[in-house]
């Protein structure tokens, strides 16, 4: 079964709006990562948040982590058409030592 699952599966917004994607996971974790994928090709790492962090920012990205609820959210502010992509969360299998397990992703469409 999936370690991380994103919600919603698809999201369509207008340019300039904020986009929020959520991720839930099942086991305790060392860190949680968000990746972006354009056109079904290679993924690009966006941000890593450690289990002792609650919030992290990178440019227009804001990630939160709630370990008590085993959930994370990715917020993209002031979205642009170029943000159109699929976004995946990933968590280490087994908590800390294993390789990353990816969710099925949220497909974001930003309309100009």
């Amino acid at each position, binding site marked *: 079964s*999936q370690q991380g699952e994103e919600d919603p599966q698809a999201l369509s917004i207008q340019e300039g709006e904020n986009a929020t994607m959520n991720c839930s996971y099942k086991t305790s974790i*060392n*860190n949680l*990562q968000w*990746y972006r994928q354009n056109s*079904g*090709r*290679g*993924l*690009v*790492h966006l941000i*890593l948040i450690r289990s002792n962090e609650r919030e992290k920012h990178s440019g227009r990205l804001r990630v939160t982590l709630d370990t008590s609820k085993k959930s994370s959210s990715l917020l993209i502010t002031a979205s642009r058409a170029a943000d159109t992509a699929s976004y*995946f969360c*990933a968590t*280490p299998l087994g908590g*800390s*030592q*294993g*390789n*990353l*397990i*990816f*969710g*099925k*992703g949220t497909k974001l469409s930003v309309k100009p």
Partner: protein
Amino acid sequence: GAGVSQSPSNKVTEKGKDVELRCDPISGHTALYWYRQSLGQGLEFLIYFQGNSAPDKSGLPSDRFSAERTGGSVSTLTIQRTQQEDSAVYLCASSLRRGWETQYFGPGTRLLVL
């Protein structure tokens, strides 16, 4: 230097043929992964190499799939007797030391089995 590279970019083959997919990780990265992504789906873990340790093959879907990593660098994923359900994008990634660190992905190989 450069990022993770994969070859070929695209591969079309006939059912029953063998294929080899290549991955060149970032120089100095000790961890290397192979994933498979079917159309519109998430990433399916296949195999993980960490330094000189025995690889974690727990994700390989059948014994038709195998992978090796020579000299701790380049890796080859081999699919024998390909089936139509093997059609997917095969992604390779590497990370500096450990599996749970940031992974750097190659552009993938799109495999189509006719």
